[in-house]
């Protein structure tokens, strides 16, 4: 378990800083999932939402925005790519193509 980026050192040294990093997710159209588009810096939730709007949906890119504090996101790490994402190809019975359908059966 780890933060998204190489090194988490976004915490402020003084009270005069650029705020926190918030990751931004935009839903382009009704029915689609929210998709990560980038991040912004802001002090607090309200400003985060406003900044995300100003930065990422100036040209009709979406109809809904989520913002999440970077430090609240947990990410897998590249070293795990092998074991963590093993598709377990030996369990072929989890694929639809594994099953034999009777001759003549349609729409299944």
């Amino acid at each position, binding site marked *: 378990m*780890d933060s*998204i*980026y*190489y*090194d988490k*050192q*976004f915490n*402020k*040294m003084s*009270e*005069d*800083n*650029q*705020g*926190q*990093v918030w990751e931004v997710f935009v839903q382009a159209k009704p029915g689609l999932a929210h998709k990560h588009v*980038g*991040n*912004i*810096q*802001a*002090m*607090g*939730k*309200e*400003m985060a939402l406003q900044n995300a709007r*100003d*930065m990422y949906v*100036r*040209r009709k890119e979406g109809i809904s925005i989520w913002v999440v504090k970077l430090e609240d996101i947990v*990410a897998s*790490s*590249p070293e795990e*790519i*092998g074991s963590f994402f093993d598709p377990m190809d030996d369990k072929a019975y989890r694929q639809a193509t594994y099953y034999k359908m009777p001759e003549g059966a349609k729409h299944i």
Partner: protein
Amino acid sequence: MSTLGEATMTGQELFDYKIENDLKIEPKDWMPEDYRKHLQRQMSQHAHSEVIGMQPEGNWILRAPSLRAKVILLAKVQDEAGHGQYLYSAAETLGKTRDEFINELQTGKAKYSSIFNYPTLTWADMGAVGWLVDGAAIVNQVSLQRTSYGPYSRAMVKICKEESFHQRQGYEIMAQMANGTPEQKEMAQDALNRFWWPSIMMFGPHDGDSPRTGNAMKWKIKRETNDDLRQQFIDKTVAQAEVIGLTIPDPDLKWNEERGHYDFGKMDWDEFWNVVNGNGPCNKQRLQHHIDAHKNGSWVRKAANAYAEKNG
């Protein structure tokens, strides 16, 4: 070849494999320290250029010749601020904070594009900046969409989508003035004369004199060399100047049938380095303005932080 991500591959091997196969490097992937440093320098310089680049154009917002021109210029300057943000965000994924990047800019440790150290003297300069400066930036940025670092590449894709309006609005101003009164045409020509050489020098030194190009090409941070990008820009801009009846201020400029490109004259690298090293007409003014604006905003940041502390 072992498959991607197998435990038998070292960080270096995996990195080399990805570069070789045009796969993107992502923030948490292992990368050589020099690759990280190169990107931090290049990306922050790119971000600083977007931000400092607001000043020469901001200079004309209150003096725009029509309401239409004013709202366009406002929107363009707002875009540049957004582009700076995209780039800082991408650069931060390499492990440096925005406060650190800003500090490096203000203490002169980091550079920004030298073109913004020239003054914008007339309204025609708004045309020249959009047409030539943004035009040169687009050529560079289109190429960088294929850069090997994922966050940088994605920022470039986003920026390129917005940038073409910038160049077109500049060219429209130039076309209008070139077809206006003799005085207006002279102003347009004068702006072209002043911005042409600094614009083609935006691509940086000749490949042979650019010590960092080798690594940047090897790591696919850069996909085309300075000289190749410069040639692309010149080739397409010459015809655009002809269409609006302006003359590119280079007596050596001529079509080379054999190469299939325009030949062009010698650039003044002494001037280029002089401006890079802080002695251009506006270096001090640009940096001081950034520092002042930053200082003046200090109480706002403090208040906003205090508010966020209380209300989340």
